[in-house]
C-alpha cells in the first residue's frame, strides 16, 4: 500500500525545549490513523510541521508526494484543535469561503455547503449566523468547512474534544465516511476509545517520542491480559497465584477490593482462578479482561493518556520560544 504520509526522524526544538524527537511513521493511503498521546505530547507541533505551518528542526516529511504540506495544501483538509469561525457569517458563507481558499468556486462551495449541512442535520441553521449556533453545531460546520474541497488527506486535531456523546458518534461516522470515499485520515486524540473503534493504525506519542506504531490489535498485544477479581481478598495472596505477574488495587469499599491481576504472556487465567478457589480466597466476582488501547498506552509509555503534559512541556516550550 502506498504511503500518503511519511515522517522520517522528525524533530522540533523550541530553544532548549525538545517538543518532538526523532519521530518516524507512515500513514497508508485510504486508511484512518490515530495519532495518540496526552495533551502536550507533541501532537499539535507534529501536525503543524506536517501542514508546513512550522518548519521541522530536523527530519523529513513526505505528504502526498510533496516535501512540504504547503505545496499540497489544496489537497489537505485540516481541523485544528482550537476551533472557531467568523461569528457574523452564515454556515453556508463560511464553508464556501474556506472552500474557495482551497480552490472550490464559490458557487460550487455554497452548493456543497448546503448539501453537507443537510446531511449533518443542520439544514435549518444554514442561514443563521455562526454566533447563534450551539457549540456542537459550530464544530460540525467547521468540520464541513475543512473537508468541503474533498481533500485526499484529512488531518483532524483532537476532533472529539468538546463534543457530546451523540455528536462524537456522528463525527466517527463522518470520519469513516471520509475514509470510505478514499481519503486518508490522520486524527489526534488523547481519548483512546475513539481510536480503538476507528483506526486501522495508531501511532502512540509520549513526551515527544513515538512509543508505538501499528494496528490496534498489535498495540493491545503489547499489554498483558488481566483478571479482575472482587472480594475480601488480599493483594499479596493474589500476587502469588500462578501466571499472575502483578497486582493493582483498582477500587476498595467496605473491605471489598477490586484487584487487577496482570497475567503473564502464556497464562490463560484458569490456573490462577482454580488456585484462588482452592486456596479459599473470598472471591465474589471475577472477569478475564482483554487489554484496551488505554492499557496498552500505559504499558508502552508508562504515562497515563489522560494526564495533561501541557502544563509541564508546553509551558517549557513557550518559555523556550
Amino acid at each position: 500500500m502506498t504511503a500518503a504520509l511519511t515522517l522520517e526522524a522528525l524533530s522540533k526544538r523550541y530553544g532548549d525545549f525538545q517538543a518532538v524527537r526523532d519521530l518516524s511513521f507512515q500513514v497508508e493511503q485510504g486508511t484512518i490513523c490515530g495519532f495518540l498521546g496526552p495533551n502536550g505530547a507533541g501532537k499539535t507541533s507534529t501536525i503543524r510541521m506536517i501542514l508546513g505551518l512550522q518548519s521541522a528542526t530536523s527530519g523529513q516529511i513526505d505528504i502526498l508526494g510533496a516535501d512540504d504540506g504547503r505545496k499540497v495544501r489544496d489537497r489537505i483538509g485540516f481541523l485544528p484543535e482550537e476551533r472557531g469561525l467568523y461569528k457574523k457569517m452564515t454556515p453556508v458563507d463560511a464553508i464556501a469561503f474556506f472552500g474557495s481558499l482551497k480552490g472550490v468556486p464559490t458557487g460550487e462551495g455554497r452548493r456543497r455547503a448546503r448539501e453537507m449541512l443537510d446531511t449533518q442535520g443542520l439544514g435549518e441553521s444554514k442561514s443563521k449566523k455562526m454566533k447563534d449556533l450551539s457549540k456542537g453545531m459550530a464544530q460540525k460546520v467547521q468540520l464541513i468547512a475543512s473537508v468541503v474541497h474533498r481533500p485526499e488527506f484529512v488531518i483532524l486535531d483532537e476532533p472529539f474534544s468538546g463534543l457530546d456523546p451523540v455528536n462524537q458518534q456522528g463525527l466517527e461516522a463522518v470520519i469513516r465516511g471520509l475514509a470510505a470515499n478514499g481519503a486518508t485520515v490522520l486524527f489526534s486524540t488523547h481519548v483512546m476509545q475513539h481510536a480503538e473503534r476507528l483506526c486501522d493504525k495508531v501511532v502512540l506519542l509520549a513526551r515527544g517520542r513515538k512509543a508505538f506504531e501499528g494496528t490496534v490489535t498489535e498495540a493491545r498485544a503489547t499489554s498483558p491480559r488481566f483478571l479482575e477479581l472482587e472480594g475480601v481478598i488480599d493483594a499479596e495472596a493474589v500476587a502469588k497465584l500462578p501466571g499472575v505477574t502483578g497486582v493493582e488495587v483498582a477500587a476498595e469499599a467496605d473491605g471489598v477490593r477490586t484487584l487487577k491481576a496482570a497475567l503473564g504472556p502464556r497464562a490463560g487465567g484458569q490456573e490462577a482462578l482454580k488456585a484462588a478457589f482452592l486456596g479459599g480466597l473470598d472471591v465474589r466476582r471475577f472477569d478475564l479482561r482483554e487489554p484496551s488501547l488505554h492499557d496498552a498506552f500505559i504499558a508502552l509509555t508508562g504515562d497515563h493518556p489522560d494526564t495533561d503534559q501541557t502544563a509541564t512541556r508546553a509551558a517549557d516550550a513557550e518559555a523556550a520560544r
Partner: protein
Amino acid sequence: MNRVLLIARREYLAYARTVGFWLSLLAFPLFAVLGGGFSVLVRHAEPVRSIALIQEAGAGPAAGSLAAIVRESIAAEQARGDVSALRRAAIPEAGVAAGDRVRKVAEAEGYDAGLAALKTEAPHAGAGFKRPKQALRVVAAPPAIASAPAGPARDDVIRRYLTDKTPVEGAPLSGVVILSERGGEPAARLWLARASDARVEDAIRDALSDANRRAVFSAAGIDPQVVAATDAWRPDVSVFSPRSATGGEVSFRDRLPGAIGFAFGFLLWSLIITGASILLNSVMEEKANKILEVLLSSASATELLTGKVLGVAMLTLSVLVVWAVLGGVGLATGLPDMARDVASVLLSGGLLVYFLLYMIGGYLMYAVLFAAIGAFCETPRDAQTLMGPIMMVLVVPILVMQMALQNPDAPVVRILSWIPFFTPFLMSARVPSDPPMTEIIGTLFGMFATALLMVWLAGRAFRAGALSDVKLSWKAFARAIRGGGE
C-alpha cells in the same frame, strides 16, 4: 480568484456589510455639515439685543455726550462687521486683492457701495451675499426708566422691565446701560436680562474704551475725527511672489496649497490610523476566535497578510472616494469658484500622484505593523502594551503639521519629514507648497524602503503571533521577528 483576492474580498465585505461602517462613513461629512451648519445656525439664530442707554446727569466727556459716543461706537462696530463680511465673501471667488478692493469701497462709501463692488468683483458671491445680522440695537430708554430718580428706585423699574420682558420699540430689552463718569473717566453700570450675556458687556467695554480714547486725544488737542479715521485705516499691501500662480501677485489660490496640504495630511493620518486599527481588530478577532490557524492551513501567511491589508485598503479607499465625492459635490455646489481653485491645485504638479504614493507607503507601514500586533492579541487590552507608545509617536506629525501650515519649509518640519513614519503626513502637508524635488524623492524612497522592511518584519511577526500563545510584549515581538515564526 486567487487567495489574496478572496481574503481581501471577505475582509472588505465583512465591514462594508455592517451598519456601523456606513454610519462611520457618513458620520464625518455629516458632522462636518452639521458642525458648519450649526455654527451658522447659532449665528443666525442669535437674537438682536435691544439695549437702552441712560446717561447719569453730569456725566460725559468733553468730546460730547457719552451716550452718543457709545451709540456711534456700536454702529461703527456693525459697519466693520459688514466690511469684513464683504471682503471675506469676495476672496474665494476673486482673490485677496479683490477682497481688499471691496473692503476699501465699503469703508469709504458705505455698505451699499461695498455690496455693489462685491457684485462687480465676485458676481456669484455678490448675488448670494447676506448682510450680517445686527448684533445690538440701541433703543430709546422707556420714560418710566428715564424719569425714575437715580438709585434704588430706578433700579427697581429696570429690574421690572427686564423681568417682565416689557417690549420697547417692538422687542423686550436685553439690557439697560447706565453711563456715568468716575474720576473723570467713562464708566457704566449694566443691567442685563441674562446674567451670562457677555455680548452686551463686551460691546459697552469697547465703546467706553473708544470714548476714553477720544477724550484723551481730544484733551491732547487732537481732533476725534482724526482719531476715528486713523483707527479705521487699513494698510494696502499687495503681496508678490515668483512662486505664485501668475508669477506675480499672490492670490487666494496661491494660499490654497498650504491649506489643502494640511487637510490632506490630516485626512491621511485619520484614514491610515482608521484603516490600520480596523486591521488590528480584524486580526485580533480571528486570533480570539481561533480562525487564524485554519486560515494559515489554507493560505500562506504572506497571502493572508496581503489579502487582509488589501481588503482594508479597499475599504479605506471607498471611504476616501465617498468623502471626496461628497466634498467635491458640496464644494462645487456651494462655492464653485473655490472648487475650481482646489481642483486646479490638486491637478497641478502631480499632487494627486504624490498624495496617492504617500497614502500607499503610510498605509503599508502602519497596516502591517498593526496586523502583526493583532496576531499576538486576543483582546484590545493585550494590544495596549504596544499600541500606547505607537499612538504617542503618532501625535507628533499632527502637531508638526500645524506648523507646516504656517511654514512648510521650517527646519523642524523638513527634518521630521525625513523620518519614514512621519513622512506620509508631513510630506502630504508640504508637497503642495512645492518643496525641493530632492526632498520629495528622498522621503518617498525612505518611506517605501521602510514600508518594505516593515512588510518583511511584520510578516515574520504575524506568522509567529498567529500560532503562538505567548503574552505580548516588545520582547516577545522582537523575538518573534528574529525567529520568523518558529
